[in-house]
């Protein structure tokens, strides 16, 4: 079983019906990918309310407010939210001495700038593509849900499905620690700490 884990520790979405709708839509996308894999390689999409464990075959996509970034936390980049307008981002940690791309952890996130299940589900699949295919901007040439602009007018294409199906059994080290990073930020925010996202 390969799992696609969607996680929103800071409750950037909120409404239960939207979580359910996103899960259902992303599962629908991955069902098309599953159909190209052996029967034993079913892909399950889940949105656990709490913590989780992940293998290198799983994909984690975090939903976070724009005020804070799991990806920046992993890559140690400083982000100024005032200058950013994008809705999603995926990156690998910076290589240390002797580290090669397959051993570098990778993190994906979607910013719910608008609580629209359709758009957020498509963005989640898009970032999952960046994650699993280990591609940056070059992914966007693939069209469909691989496009840079992932609005409600975009759809999953057979090319997108084939690309993901070919990569699903390739291990990509994930960043499950992002959950605790966001959970701690939530505790600070709820305690009234104005620096909760630092």
């Amino acid at each position: 079983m390969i799992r696609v884990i969607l996680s929103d520790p800071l409750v950037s979405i909120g409404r239960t019906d939207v979580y359910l709708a996103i899960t259902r839509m992303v599962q629908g996308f991955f069902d098309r990918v599953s159909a190209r894999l052996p029967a034993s390689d079913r892909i399950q999409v889940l949105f656990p309310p709490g913590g989780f464990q992940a293998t290198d075959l799983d994909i984690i996509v975090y939903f976070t407010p724009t005020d804070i970034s799991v990806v920046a936390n992993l890559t140690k980049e400083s982000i100024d939210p005032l200058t950013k307008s994008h809705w999603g981002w995926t990156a690998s940690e910076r290589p240390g001495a002797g580290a090669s791309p397959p051993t570098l952890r990778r993190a994906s996130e979607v910013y719910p700038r608008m609580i629209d299940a359709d758009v957020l589900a498509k963005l989640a699949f898009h970032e999952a593509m960046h994650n699993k295919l280990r591609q940056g901007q070059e992914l966007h040439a693939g069209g469909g849900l691989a496009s840079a602009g992932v609005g409600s007018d975009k759809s999953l294409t057979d090319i997108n499905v084939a690309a993901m199906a070919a990569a699903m059994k390739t291990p990509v080290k994930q960043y499950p620690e992002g959950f605790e990073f966001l959970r701690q930020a939530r505790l600070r925010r709820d305690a009234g700490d104005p620096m909760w996202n630092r």
Partner: protein
Amino acid sequence: MIVLPPRVHVVATEWLAALMEKAAPDFVIDGYPEYATEVAQLDNDQRYMLYRAASAVVRSFGEQTHVSAVFIVGHADTANKIALHQRAGFEMEVSVKRSVAAAAALRKEMNRLSENAHFTKVLPIRTRGAGSSRKRVQIANTEHDMRKNRRVEITFAYTTEPSPHCGN
């Protein structure tokens, strides 16, 4: 409608407050009993108005243009029972308390409606008291007219998000 560039409310609080104070309010909640400051002391119709304001904020986050800041001004009627030399200060205090209490009630209702979504916890809500300086009924002789003056005005500022796109 006030539409702001993304996140300008974070860096321009006073400028925003001045801008929003001049705008027509999106919601007016009036009918406070004399010197009352809590939303719970209002009748059902006025409490429903607060619910509508909270609902409008939460619903807006389903759109690309959504509420990005809320400005609440509290108002008082002339406090005839208070000595003249203390009156202005007392009226200001009542109006400030009304704005602060309405902000707390609005935040609580937004949290409930959004199922505790992050955006309702961090949405800036600025409050201000105007004393009795801006009465709706200048010469209020009836309880009905006085209650028109005892009110809070809620104004929204909006931000339009960019079209969905990836940052890679």
